[in-house]
């Protein structure tokens, strides 16, 4: 009959009751990690600082040779380099190493606007 199913159900419930709250709480703690990352040395970019403030949803990292300001739409020459999450790189592109001088910036896919310039006013935001 169904006693084995009941036992399996009980075990699943105990496992979830312990595991899921732990997973949720842990995930809330890690999102406070400092938004700073060291890029691979071979890119020659040094350290890139991402905005301290919470980044807007669905952020993407772009490069543009043209001047870029916060709040503007995507520049015509913008090149997608990768996605950003929790202020950290989710992915990066080998193209970075080949870029000429320009500006790295974060673009919100949701808001359709530039939300942050990376390393603005320092050499960090400039591709070299």
């Amino acid at each position, binding site marked *: 009959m*169904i006693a084995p199913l009941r036992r399996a159900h*009980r075990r699943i*419930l105990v496992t979830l009751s312990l595991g*899921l*709250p732990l*997973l949720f709480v842990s995930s809330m703690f890690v*999102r406070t990690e400092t938004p700073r990352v060291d890029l691979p040395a071979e890119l020659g970019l040094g350290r890139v600082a991402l905005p301290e403030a919470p980044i*807007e949803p669905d952020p993407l990292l772009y490069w543009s040779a043209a001047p870029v300001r916060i709040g503007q739409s995507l520049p015509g020459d913008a090149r997608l380099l990768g996605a950003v999450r929790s202020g950290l790189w989710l992915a990066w592109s080998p193209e970075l190493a080949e870029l000429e001088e320009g500006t790295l910036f974060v673009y919100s*896919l949701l808001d359709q606007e530039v939300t942050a310039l990376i390393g603005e006013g320092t050499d960090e935001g400039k591709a070299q």
Partner: protein
Amino acid sequence: MSHAYRAVGWNRQKKVYDRILTLGVILFLGLFMGVGALLRPNATAETLMIRGFGAAAFLLLHVILSIGPLCRLDPRFLPLLYNRRHMGVTMFILAALHGLLSLIQFHGFGDVHPLVSLFTASDSYGSLAWFPFQPLGFGALVILFLMAATSHDFWLANLGAPVWKALHMSVYFAYALLIGHVSLGVLQAETSPWLALPVALGLAWVLGLHLVAAGTEARLDRDVEGVEFEGLVDVCAVHDIKDKRARIVCLDGERVAIFRYDGKISAVSNACQHQNGPLGEGRVIDGCITCPWHGYQYEPHNGSSPPPFTEKVPTFDVRIRQGRVLVNPDANAPGTEVSPALIDFADKGAPDA
């Protein structure tokens, strides 16, 4: 029920259930996308739809997971359970729309196949903050698809209730994957506590409800410690059972429903053959034990559904001795005829409730 495919047998209850469900989903999506567009005027329709479908599916999954324990705690929630499978299929459709639109928006325009991109965009499995959350959602979607695809009674009949139940218990695994998908995905980017709080409350609600229901059910799974007489176990007094109702006892780890009806006592397995619903919480209607979940019926003396139906549940030998009900803990094969124990006036004890 039959091993041949039959289209869904619509009745008024199912139509009302589905209308309310559809209306609720439309209202939620309209509200979510309307408020989203007001708060973020530049947001694209695709993004609002991705988030709306995902939120609706996640919320509906919480409702679905709550129905089982709520029905265990209060039978007034049983109408929600009646057509729960339609709610599950609706939830899968919403989740599939969320997944499909996400796949197009985030992986559809690269130089690799979108599914390859989904699994290779990030390989930071060693970091919680960077953990690839999208494959978690994909895994949950696969499970939900299997459940939706096998939700029809055709599969229930072919697989058998225990296998079908085991397959559909994987909803808990899908739920775990989705908690990971949401916690490591959108809640990493959206840091507002007003988004994290509902997820935390939903998780606490689902787990708390299951734990409370499990606690109240635990007493049913304790074997009866009645005196044995000639291989039969003394389970209760005749007057402990209300007329047309049952008392559920546990014998050798299995629940047995002992029904009293028309001056007789019969015992059958407590698990309905359809979806393992609790027969002992049903009633005897028109001479048949009627499952409280979907109305499947069985004759008390042989555990068989009345013709033309073919479902059968195990029966148990039962006797009455000095006003006490004695049950043989060894189940008979499903559908085995067992003479009901007749209640003498002297056995009757307290008046029927």
